[in-house]
């Protein structure tokens, strides 16, 4: 049997995706389906003073127009940051209140999608408008739970002022990051069909269990009465994790009109009806002795949040885990403004904070006159700087050394502005990448047939990353089958528990569950064949039979392939479940996951700190006259335990770096301050990198063994590649121009005015 782990395996769904036969949630069209459309507010704050739906109702094809007064049975759930499954705590259309621009105020159902949209546009609405503020005021920031239990949101170790006092060099700097939107290719969509008290919902989701649990509870239905289906997801990045108003409105509307209803949210509406990455400010004070050893590390992160949720993505927990330092002070702060609630977007704790941290480290290196790579080396540590437990594995400097070699770091000019290429100023920059290794509990069911076929079933999700493929590989490797002989079924809430596809946990957590289920299959088969009269393993103690690459082995060298052994049993078929739970997972976190929440072990357990690491290097060209910033080379080296599939892992890391490049140079949700609206709400004007921006992009994947993290030794990689890219680019801009850009995206206008 060919080895399937740590090889390049083409996605099992590749052909279906490129031929259009992969069915996404909105491709399911129940008989008699009608179409929904949202009407959203122009103003950001105030009240609905009146809605006139007469013209919409008269529009041909329109079946019904619902407002806060006319939608019976519209149910809501608690918001995520209040411990519920909802995308936000404030629910539109419960009353007249308007809390953010682009808030749904009416829901139109029509025979065609065009009629529904037209109907939505024909609704006349009067507002009582109040003043709204879209940008946070960092001066008004607060620490969550200050005065109560604020454990973790602030941290002090040692004496930061003493550490700064003792430093040979200090850096004090503030960095800013903007509002950003996920912009998955696949639009937000929800289709609801009621049959009596049985509800089916098709919806692209990162958590079908969360969705089912939330809906069932809201409607007081048993979970068995609610089916949630999300077979494929066309990108999510955090935007499809929660129970959203557009889903609950669709479910209520379908109930009200007595027919299935499908809503596809428009691209501009996608900017306001769900979450986004909040804007932030990152304040650092670093001190180092003459050798570069950190004597003081202070990081205060201020992140924007809505008026009704404390959206906290604790980035300071990541930065304070990074470098050795005796004196550490961190604060996790929020500042409110008038938007819908933000949420998590790919590397939600890390992208912004590592732009700050790694830019500040670069400033420090220049002040010290040190090679920035050496500054990281001097401060590298194999114990967690705060919790003082060892890292389960940490290949930070191996990553720097590998990327330095491939990039040619040693060839850089040592002075600012010392390299040019024609009219372009050239600079090199580097930065650290890291991502916490979090493990959720997960289950999986595996059924194997003696004919040599296996089925893997679990309520996990393939958000485009390749989960279908890696689960097939894990099962194939253990059961001794070719990858094509394993069918993976996912994206249904009725299947065995799997966690939210978030925090880069799926491969490690659900992959471990698949692994355990396969081990259990082997045990079941071993028991049966050991009890049989003949056969190579007959009469052995089943506890002594082991499974290796699909072959059962006895203590005396007896062996039989699992498939053969299975075929010899009376049923010729076996089913087993696997339950994975990291030993450090608390009961509370376990319960949380079973109730649709995000319960994890890690990244720091009582005995270990679990993180993946990497290093990125960018060559940046800044045009002497026009100040255009281009990145002809971007190299990254990463170590993240076992590589399950070198092809999909490479894609994740490369895609992450492209995303990081976008956050460095392009990505920003433009804001109209007077009216508190997001402006460039479409993908023509919300810029992300195109091919011409991504030139030489190299990913090096280092070998790393970690027996602590989980049975497979896997760390999550879906977000790792984004972290640090923006700082690497910014640091290279500084090297090229001597201009330190402290906000992303870094654009022509910033250099012209810097």
């Amino acid at each position, binding site marked *: 049997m060919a080895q399937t782990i740590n090889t390049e395996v083409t996605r099992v769904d590749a052909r279906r995706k490129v031929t259009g036969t992969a069915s996404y949630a909105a491709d399911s069209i129940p008989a008699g389906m009608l179409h929904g459309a949202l009407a959203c507010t122009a103003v950001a704050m105030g009240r609905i003073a009146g809605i006139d739906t007469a013209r919409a109702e008269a529009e041909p094809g329109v079946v019904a127009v619902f407002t806060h007064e006319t939608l019976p049975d519209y149910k809501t759930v608690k918001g995520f940051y209040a411990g519920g499954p909802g995308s936000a705590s404030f629910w539109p259309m419960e009353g007249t209140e308007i809390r953010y621009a682009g808030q749904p105020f009416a829901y139109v159902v029509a025979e065609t999608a065009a009629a529904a949209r037209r109907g939505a546009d024909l609704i006349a609405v009067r507002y009582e408008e109040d003043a709204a503020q879209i940008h946070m005021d960092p001066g008004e920031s607060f620490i969550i739970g200050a005065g109560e239990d604020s454990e973790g949101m602030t941290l002090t170790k040692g004496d930061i002022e003493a550490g700064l006092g003792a430093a040979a060099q200090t850096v004090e700097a503030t960095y800013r990051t903007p509002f950003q939107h996920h912009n998955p290719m696949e639009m937000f969509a929800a289709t609801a069909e009621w049959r009596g008290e049985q509800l089916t919902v098709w919806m692209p989701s990162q958590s079908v269990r969360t969705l089912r649990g939330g809906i069932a509870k809201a409607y007081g239905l048993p979970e068995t009465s609610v089916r949630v289906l999300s077979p494929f997801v066309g990108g999510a990045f955090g935007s499809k994790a929660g129970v959203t108003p557009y889903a609950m409105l669709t479910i209520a509307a379908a109930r009200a009109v007595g027919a299935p209803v499908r809503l596809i949210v428009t691209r*501009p509406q996608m900017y306001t009806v769900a979450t986004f990455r909040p804007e932030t400010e990152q304040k650092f004070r670093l001190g180092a002795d003459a050798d570069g050893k950190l004597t003081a590390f202070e990081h205060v992160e201020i992140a924007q949040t809505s008026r009704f949720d404390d959206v906290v993505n604790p980035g300071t927990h990541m930065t304070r885990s990074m470098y050795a330092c005796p004196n550490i002070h961190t604060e996790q702060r929020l500042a409110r403004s008038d938007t819908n609630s933000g949420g998590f977007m790919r590397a939600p704790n890390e992208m912004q904070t590592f732009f700050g941290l790694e830019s500040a480290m670069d400033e420090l290196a220049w002040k010290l006159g040190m090679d920035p790579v050496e500054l990281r080396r001097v401060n590298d540590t194999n114990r967690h700087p705060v919790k003082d437990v060892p890292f389960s594995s940490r290949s930070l400097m191996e990553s720097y050394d590998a990327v330095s070699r491939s990039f040619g770091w040693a060839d850089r000019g040592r002075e600012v502005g010392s390299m040019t290429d024609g009219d372009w100023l050239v600079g090199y920059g580097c930065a650290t990448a890291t991502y916490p290794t979090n493990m959720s509990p997960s289950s999986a069911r595996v059924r194997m047939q003696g004919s040599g076929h296996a089925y893997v079933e679990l309520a996990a999700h393939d958000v485009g990353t390749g989960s279908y493929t890696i689960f097939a590989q894990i099962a194939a490797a253990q059961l001794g089958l070719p990858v094509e002989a394993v069918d993976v079924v996912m994206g249904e809430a009725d299947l065995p528990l799997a966690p939210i596809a978030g925090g880069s946990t799926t491969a490690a957590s659900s992959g471990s569950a698949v692994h355990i289920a396969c081990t259990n299959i082997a045990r079941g088969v071993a028991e049966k064949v050991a009890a049989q009269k003949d056969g190579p393993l007959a009469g052995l103690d089943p506890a002594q039979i082991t499974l290796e690459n699909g072959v059962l082995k006895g203590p005396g060298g007896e062996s039989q392939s699992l498939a053969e052994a299975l075929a010899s049993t009376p049923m010729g078929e076996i089913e087993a479940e696997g339950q994975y739970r990291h030993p450090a997972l608390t009961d509370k976190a376990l319960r949380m996951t079973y109730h649709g929440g995000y319960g994890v072990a890690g990244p720091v357990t009582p005995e270990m700190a679990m993180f993946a690491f990497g290093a990125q290097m960018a060559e940046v060209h800044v*045009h002497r006259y026009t100040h255009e*910033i281009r990145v002809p080379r971007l190299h990254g080296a990463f170590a993240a335990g076992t590589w399950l599939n070198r092809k999909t892992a490479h894609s994740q890391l490369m895609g992450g770096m492209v995303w990081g490049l976008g956050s460095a*140079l392009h990505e920003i949700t433009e804001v*109209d*301050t*007077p009216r508190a609206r997001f*402006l460039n709400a479409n993908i023509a004007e919300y810029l992300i990198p195109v091919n*011409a921006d991504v030139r030489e992009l190299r990913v090096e994947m280092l070998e790393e063994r970690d027996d602590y993290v989980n049975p497979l030794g896997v760390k999550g990689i879906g977000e790792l590649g984004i972290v640090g890219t923006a700082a690497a680019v910014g640091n290279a801009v500084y090297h090229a121009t001597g201009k330190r850009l402290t906000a992303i995206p870094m654009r*022509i206008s910033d250099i012209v005015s810097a």
Partner: protein
Amino acid sequence: MKPFEYLRAADRGTARRDAAMPAAAYIAGGTNLLDLMKLEVMQPERLVDINRLDMKSVETTGEGGLRIGALVTNSDLAAHETVIADYPLLSRALLAGASGQLRNKATTGGNLLQRTRCYYFYDTAMACNKRDPGSGCAAIGGATRLHAILGASAQCIATHPSDMAVAMLALDAEVEIEEESGETRRIPLREFHTLPGDTPHIETVLPQGALITAVHLPAPAGGTQIYRKVRDRASYAFALVSIAARVTLEDGKIAQVALAFGGVAHKPWRDPEVEKALIGKAPSRALFDTAADILLADARGQGDNDFKIPLVRRTLRAVLTEATGGAG
């Protein structure tokens, strides 16, 4: 989207007749019009599809120039042999615009008439004099990074987004039109687009119902030709600033020059005073800066777009340096 009537015209006469009502619009590639209709920024009641009309060829004219049919796609025009050989800056400008897919659909006529990318124009929740005359201009005092620094008014500060038109302006192009009456005439491109003034919803001098049939380029003027488009994203993005330049040197002096600017005004911008100041002079950094001073004498930023003023100056320096062989 507002429901509309759709007519496909078989010939120009029918097209003009069908379009002879204020709420009608011609549709060519549809790459701009359809987007705006979906957002209800434009709400024509009747679409007259002109794609079957015989306006798809590029011909050499008696004057030694080119006549480019209004339906020639941006892709075809960019790849046309004569254009590449004799009007290279036009080919480069076209290729710097939009994406391959869009250029395959976008037409010469439609490109000239494409509307501004002002975010506020696109968002029907915002006041916009261009979309809804008299409603105000939400962009002023708002997010103005993309807006005009020249020729703006208190009613509108939008820019014209076309690359092709900037190149054609530097090439002294003329727009051939057929009026509702059937009468054909040519309008110099320099006079075709208008400044916003008090009527930002009017963007050209094209009469109501008139059809653009072609664009004429005069006989090739030669010289060094450059199209320089400055933007944050390396491709598939509108210009923050662009410059189309045609420069001929004789005896070390600038003998002929044409300079057109994009991304700076409500229309592709050309300033004869700038060109006059350059002609007959030996290229130097000081000379280029003098040209920029003349160009930008009345430039005014709105805040977010203040950077465009130094950016135009710097880009002009880059373009003229390159065009004159490195004197700057």
